[in-house]
């Protein structure tokens, strides 16, 4: 009886795993199939073709979009790590008059749904003349409340003695932060890095609002516009464009899945 249970369990898990993986496998194989074959269930195309990719690449600036996404996501991640840890360090280990207010404000910010501030932020960007600029994509994301809270939580646990001896050696605050706190904070820094990067990489609503010029669009944005605007023509082509967005993530995920899970699940719970 026990073995029957085990077999049933593994069978169930396999079916479940297939439902989660198969659609992506199908998507990948569909991009290599000619239009007639696309509907087929099989994962191996009868005729392998790269036409879908060629068409997609020719019809819209996907290479540029890839670079845009990489640039925006990387800049934001670095900024969040840098500025976030500076802020979190001050909020955790330094006492200054505005601290409780800042704490409360950070938590309050997390409680407000993004849709409330969406329009005013948009009008602000318009008024600053930042439509169709990288500034519009990057500046509103330079500080991340979730990241600051997480980093602050972690920094609170670092022993005071380390700071005290560093101060006695004459180190300034920034020195302390980057030479002492950072090396000790590798796990939480990587968690923050991953969810910040992924959040930016997959973000689509904001770019749709503030960027119109195709050459400045981020990858998910261009992909959406392309798929909806009829530029794709066939399923194969639109899926090919999706692949450009997905493949880097899947590769990273394959190697770092534990970090991804720890990061994105943890951030979601805090949020």
């Amino acid at each position, binding site marked *: 009886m026990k073995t029957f249970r085990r077999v049933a*369990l*593994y069978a*169930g898990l396999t079916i*479940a*795993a297939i439902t*989660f993986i198969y*659609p992506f496998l*199908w998507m990948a194989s*569909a991009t290599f199939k000619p239009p007639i074959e696309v*509907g087929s269930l099989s994962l191996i195309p009868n005729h392998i073709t790269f036409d879908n990719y060629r068409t997609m690449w020719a019809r819209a600036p996907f290479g540029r979009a890839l670079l845009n996404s990489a640039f925006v996501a990387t800049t934001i991640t670095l900024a969040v790590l840098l*500025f976030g840890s*500076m*802020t979190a*360090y001050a*909020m955790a280990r*330094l*006492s*200054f008059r*505005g*601290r409780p207010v*800042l704490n409360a*404000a*950070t938590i309050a*910010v997390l409680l407000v*749904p993004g*849709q*409330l*501030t969406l*329009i*005013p*932020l*948009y*009008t*602000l960007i*318009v008024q600053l003349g930042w439509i169709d600029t990288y500034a519009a994509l990057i500046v509103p994301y*330079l*500080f991340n409340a979730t990241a*600051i809270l997480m980093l602050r939580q972690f920094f609170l646990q670092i022993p005071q003695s380390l700071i005290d001896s560093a101060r006695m050696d004459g180190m300034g*605050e*920034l020195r302390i932060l980057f030479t002492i706190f950072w090396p000790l904070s590798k796990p939480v820094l990587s968690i923050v890095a991953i969810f910040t990067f992924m959040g930016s990489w*997959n973000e*689509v*609503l904001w770019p*749709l609002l503030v960027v119109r010029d195709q050459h400045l669009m981020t990858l*998910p944005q261009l*992909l959406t516009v392309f*798929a909806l605007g009829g530029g794709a023509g066939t*399923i194969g082509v*639109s*899926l090919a464009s*999706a692949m450009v*967005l*997905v493949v880097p*993530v899947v590769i990273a*995920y394959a190697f770092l899945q*534990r970090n991804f*899970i720890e990061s994105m*699940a943890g951030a*979601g*719970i805090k949020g």
Partner: protein
Amino acid sequence: MRAEERSGSLLTAPYAAFLLIFAVYPIAFALALVFMQWDLVTTPSFAGFDNVRLLANDGRFWRAVANTFVFLSIHVPLQIASALALALALNRRLVLRGFWRASFFLPVVISGAVVAILWSHLYATDVGLINRLLARIGLNPVPWLTDPATAMPAIAVMVTWKNVGFYVIIYLAGLQYIPRSCQEAIEIEGASAWQRFRYLTLPSLLPQTLLVVTLSTINGFQLFIEPYVMTGGGPLRRTYSVVLYLYTNAFAYQKMGYAATIGVALALIIGTVVLIQRRTIGRTEAL
């Protein structure tokens, strides 16, 4: 300490400035916009409670809210059941446990836009994979995204599929906290597997279940890319989401005041629903 005060203020000044510009100001301005009419080109004009009145009578808005409730009524129970089932399955010594967990979590890391595009092909009435599978077992094809009755449920299933891995992790964490001695005690006391689940596991997971309900509710109200990509809000506006409506008012109609009003209303609705949920479900836990 003078120096500490100075460093602290200095280090956090950029953040404070950021909060003022990108958090405090937008919230305040959003509330102000509710009472204004603005198309971004001409100067904004005061409109009193016009926007609010319009919203109260706006069929499209309330249709969108109703759609969201339809979505939630399918998505939330389905999410709880599937995440819980998978978490229970994973919560034991398994071969390749890391692999199973990774496969369930995979859709979580993939962009919502990609998932929406992928599934709109899966749901396609004629060439879609799902209908082809149904045909293989002899069933008729279903017009998933074009039939008003099935469109929102179809999206609900898709969103459940995308997010289940995330909630599996939450439930798995909760399962670790059930003390081993409680599990052994209830076994010795004579509980069958089902009784163990009902009297120990499920009640112990109440905080996690509340979290699943809250997060997936908020997620449901913020639905945008899915209807945008898959159905454009149709058929018969049955998949029109609130955020989609907000976006259309801002981007297409250039009605900033009205769009902001929708935003504020949405925030209030989300806040109220989550509060009610906390009170009803959360109350059972505190007892």
